[in-house]
């Protein structure tokens, strides 16, 4: 589902409810693609004293979340992907799931001439050399159903990652964007189809764009079939 720009709180509430629905098989694995208005999110491992140095009056919301990892920044121009999938169907392995998200990101940026890489001991996708962080990952798993996901910097000012916070707890890290590295204007709309294809390839999913103008309607086809049969 492509949701457009969604406030962080609404998206988080939605994820938790959809995760419950996926958990009991009421809806299929669901992947949300969206952007957030400016927001700093804190993970379970965030050290607020060390990582937060927001200037007074900074136009940004701060939200404490239940995902893994440390602090990060979201804003317009960043493609956020929240896969809500049942890992009982995808290997029951959280580390493998995170590696798969990294692989999906690497495949997503390849069409833009970028060679994403993993760095030993760090989560996310980077470009080298020198190391520049292109995408962040933070996940939560409950009853084997995932929430949260990844944030890919497509075209935004990366200054908040360092000026407002010490993103991911990484001192002296450099953050970059697809547009900056590709040397041209790149939009979230241009990247999203590649992101969808990569998620499908890595997780073996066939994602149905919902709601569709024609055909599929409001509900996923498995739900349609179930309702039509009653």
């Amino acid at each position, binding site marked *: *589902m*492509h*949701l*457009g720009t*969604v406030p962080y709180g*609404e998206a988080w509430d*939605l994820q938790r*409810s*959809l995760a*419950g*629905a*996926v958990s*009991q098989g*009421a*809806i299929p694995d*669901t992947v*949300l693609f969206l952007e957030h208005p400016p927001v700093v999110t804190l993970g379970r491992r965030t050290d607020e004293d060390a990582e937060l140095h927001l200037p007074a009056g900074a136009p940004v919301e701060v939200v404490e979340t239940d995902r893994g990892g440390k602090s990060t920044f979201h804003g317009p121009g960043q493609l956020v992907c929240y896969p809500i999938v049942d890992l009982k169907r995808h290997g029951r392995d959280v580390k493998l799931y995170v590696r798969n998200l990294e692989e999906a990101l690497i495949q997503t940026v390849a069409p833009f001439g970028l060679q994403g890489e993993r760095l030993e001991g760090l989560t996310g996708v980077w470009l080298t050399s020198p190391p520049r962080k292109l995408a962040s990952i933070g996940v939560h798993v409950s009853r084997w159903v995932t929430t949260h996901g990844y944030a890919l910097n497509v075209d935004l000012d990366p200054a908040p990652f360092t000026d407002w916070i010490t993103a991911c707890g990484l001192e002296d890290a450099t953050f970059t964007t697809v547009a900056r590295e590709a040397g041209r204007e790149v939009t979230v709309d241009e990247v999203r189809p590649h992101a969808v294809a990569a998620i499908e390839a890595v997780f073996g999913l066939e994602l149905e764009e*919902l*709601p569709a103008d024609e055909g599929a309607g*409001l*509900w996923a086809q498995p*739900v349609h079939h179930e309702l039509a049969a009653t």
Partner: protein
Amino acid sequence: VSERFERDARLYDEVAADLDRAAAHARVAAQHFRDGVVPRGAAHAWAVRGHLLEAQARLDAQAREHARLSSPEA
């Protein structure tokens, strides 16, 4: 209150919480559809369905348990 009734009370608390969340998502879905923000409306509509089915599943489980207790030989 017996342990059994306390367990029943907790179950109905959980059912009520699911129904509250379903209602909240339904209101947000309605607003998004009115605003023409269809994908977000649809996502909240899915959330409504999930919470209703969750509540239904809890009630069904309790009904099965009561049926088992009332007809232990069945």
